[in-house]
């Protein structure tokens, strides 16, 4: 049955059906994540402060996201009278696009993948940058001083953090030799010592020194940049509640605001999924390889591993938020330009030397 289904998905009609399944699945996945990560955030915030978090609606407050959604939907949405209406409403649409598009190339399991793009990594990063533009436009079109300040901050913050992030990703591409995310995952099979975070130091499969000696540092830089790119604490200068009301979203009400909020969590999902794929072996098991003969059961176990890794990274995002206070803007830019960029440039140089080294002797 499954074989005939796979055959059907390779016919022209099947490709169309696959697009629809992708659309429905990804929209559902992003929406569910966005809604329930808010719950995770609030519950986590509570627990980190020795409070119970949401408890009133449903068991353990699990009905809180639908309640919030209904509340947001019931609110009137309006644009500020002197703002740019078109750009104002384009921003929430654009901000939701990157998480939806980027999940196209992300392999959840060995067969669970919307499209196996051979430049998947490039695609994710090119679309990921739309998020910044959407936030900037939203703030700019609001005609509000807080929003404008927030927009300026978003741009300088993202310019500063895009550089080390891309340098780190270039290092990873040099080590893996491919931009195909499924290929990158397949390379990391066979146990946690083969994941890129450790394979960079010593390549157990090939039995020689790895291509990226500073791979754990690289992972850290990637993770810090991901936090800054998604405007998460301690880098949430864009939405600094205590000084900028709600940053770029100040003038948005109801679901317009809700979309920005959901996109933030959608971007966290994409960022953590990328960190999992690039460094933590994606859907690969931490011990050994899932046998191919297990078929669909193996695939689902792989999906389980992928989601477990991804959600533990997301939990760390929440953990970081409720541990550290917001940094100053100078501190944020200094961290990027003085530490992250030099270190990531050094790793880039080091791995290019290490990769060329065997050919020199």
């Amino acid at each position, binding site marked *: 049955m499954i074989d005939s289904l796979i055959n059907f998905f390779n016919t022209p009609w099947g490709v169309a059906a696959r697009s629809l399944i992708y659309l429905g699945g990804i929209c559902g996945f992003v929406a569910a994540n966005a809604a329930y990560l808010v719950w995770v955030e609030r519950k986590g915030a*509570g*627990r*980190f402060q020795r*409070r119970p978090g949401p408890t009133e609606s449903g068991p353990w407050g699990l009905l809180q996201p639908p309640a919030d959604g209904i509340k947001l939907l019931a609110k009137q949405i309006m644009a500020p009278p002197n703002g740019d209406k078109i750009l104002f409403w384009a921003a929430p649409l654009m901000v939701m696009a990157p998480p939806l598009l980027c999940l196209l190339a992300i392999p959840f399991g060995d067969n669970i993948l919307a499209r196996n793009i051979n430049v998947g990594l490039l695609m994710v990063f090119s679309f990921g940058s739309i998020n910044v533009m959407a936030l900037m436009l939203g703030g700019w079109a609001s005609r509000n001083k807080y929003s404008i300040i927030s927009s300026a901050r978003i741009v300088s913050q993202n310019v500063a953090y895009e550089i080390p992030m891309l340098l780190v990703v270039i290092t990873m591409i040099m080590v893996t030799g491919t931009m195909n995310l499924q290929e990158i995952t397949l390379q990391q099979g066979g146990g946690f010592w083969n994941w890129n975070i450790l394979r960079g130091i010593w390549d157990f499969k090939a039995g020689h020194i790895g291509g990226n000696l500073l791979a754990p540092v690289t992972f850290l830089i990637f993770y810090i940049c991901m936090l800054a790119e998604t405007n998460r604490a301690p880098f949430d200068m864009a939405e600094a509640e205590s000084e900028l009301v709600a940053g770029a979203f100040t003038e948005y009400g109801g679901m317009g605001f809700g979309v920005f909020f959901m996109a933030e969590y959608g971007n966290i999902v994409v960022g953590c999924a990328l960190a999992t794929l690039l460094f933590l072996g994606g859907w690969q098991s931490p011990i050994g390889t899932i046998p191919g003969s297990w078929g669909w059961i193996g695939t689902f176990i792989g999906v389980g591993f992928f989601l477990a890794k991804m959600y533990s990274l997301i939990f760390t995002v929440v953990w*970081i938020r*409720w*541990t550290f206070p917001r940094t100053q803007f100078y501190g944020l830019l200094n961290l990027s330009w003085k*530490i992250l960029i030099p270190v990531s440039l050094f790793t880039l140089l080091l791995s290019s030397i290490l990769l060329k080294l065997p050919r020199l002797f």
Partner: protein
Amino acid sequence: MSLIKETVFGFWSLITGMRITIKEFFSPTITTHYPRQTLPIPKRFRGHIELKWNEETGRANCTACGICAKACPSDCIELEGIKPAGEKGKAVTSYHLNYTLCSLCSLCVEACPFDAIQHSGRYNLASVSNKWNHMDLFDRYKEQAVRAGKTPFIPEAAVVAPVPSAAPAATTPAASADAAPQPAQ
């Protein structure tokens, strides 16, 4: 070199911070779930004043001497009393407290020579109207005595003492005092 040292040390301090918060994450919560749970009110809590009464006889200690009203710097106490038939001393018949003026200074409690006033433990008073701020403590005493299974002592006299014209209506405050949330006492 110092930059590297600073970076490594700073990173280590971040890890320490995260270790502390995750320890808190897995500890039990320490909040009181207010409407369902309440903390015990400390004995020295200063709620609004109330009349003390004798548990055995069911009679209020107040003799309507008016020292509390004189001691009050905010002038928020007005009380009346009569001589009950066949008794020597006076007994209180209405004790009006204007809670909007009261600053809970406790001077009335200190001034009372008969140990007749105490602070109540009511801490969650809230209402949409301002009526309950004018309370008749004699009505409160009557309710408390009835709740404790005692017959409240209501002095009756052959000759009623002259009523001051400024005395507020005694019925409204008690009725609206009930509208305010009552803590378990």
